[in-house]
């Protein structure tokens, strides 16, 4: 009887995913100390608190169409998220898409909150090239603030 020999499974490179990616829905950022983190994300960045999950050491913040979940690894409830090694960074930064705004007012707002702009420049984002200002949250995570590309660009 002829034996059917099966080829070893090779990665199905040609097959297409049975879904389409729409975009980043949310991100869980590790912070150390919830109070300063919440102040930064709500008062400086204008996120709003959507839900509190103290049993997980978590706070869900609304950032436009997306959520930013803060996980406070300084509390025991967040031990599930606490990395065994401190100080590691698997993400370099995350970028928030801002609506049309007054750049001067944005700079003054950051200055009033003593938030230092650590870097700036015209960089590409998902909507095209525009000015980016980089700041740090109180735990040292880098946040890029990016407006839409200039009109006519």
């Amino acid at each position, binding site marked *: 009887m002829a034996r059917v020999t099966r080829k070893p499974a090779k*990665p*199905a*490179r040609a*097959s*297409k*995913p*049975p*879904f*389409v*990616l*729409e*975009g*980043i*829905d*949310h*991100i*869980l*950022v*590790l912070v150390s100390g919830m109070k300063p983190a919440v102040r930064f994300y709500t*008062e400086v*960045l*204008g996120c709003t608190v959507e*839900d509190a999950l103290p049993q997980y050491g978590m706070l*869900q913040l*609304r*950032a*436009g*169409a*997306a*959520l930013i*979940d803060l996980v406070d690894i300084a509390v025991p409830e967040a031990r599930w*998220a606490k*990395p*065994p*090694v401190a*100080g*590691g*960074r*698997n*993400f*370099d*930064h*995350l*970028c*928030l*898409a*801002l*609506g049309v*705004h007054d750049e001067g*007012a*944005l700079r003054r*707002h950051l200055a*009033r909150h003593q938030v230092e702009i650590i870097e700036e420049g015209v960089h*590409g*984002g*998902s909507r095209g090239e525009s000015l980016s200002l980089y700041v740090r949250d109180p*735990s040292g995570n880098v946040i890029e*603030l*990016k*407006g839409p590309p200039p009109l006519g660009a």
Partner: protein
Amino acid sequence: MSKAPFEIKGLDHIVLRVRDRDRMVRFYCDILGCRMEREQAEIGLTQVRAGHSLIDLVPVDGKLGRMGGAAPGKEGRNLDHFCITLDGYDEAKIRAYLTAQGVEIGEAGSRYGAEGEGPSLYVSDPEGNVVELKGPPWHA
């Protein structure tokens, strides 16, 4: 306290610090279906598109990556996971597909995301970052 003089629309992109750029590109593009958007080898930046967002891959030994300090330790992280919204969520098909691609699938469940409660499952990228793949909310 003064209000922020701008409005956040959403997450534009996330920058992952990576050790093996090619392997990560294969995962995000060939398996998850991201599209290559832009490559700037001279500074060590690969940008792939995930719908309206970008995922940037920065090799830790490239120009940009070196500015970020030491490579992330095996267990060191500042990001627990991030979630990508899918248009179309047939869990059986997704599972079969990912399994055929050799992707390890974590827990599936009903979870809360930016659009509400809906089905999702976790996978790990080749460097151990957890990516949540999430379908539309139950009550869309």
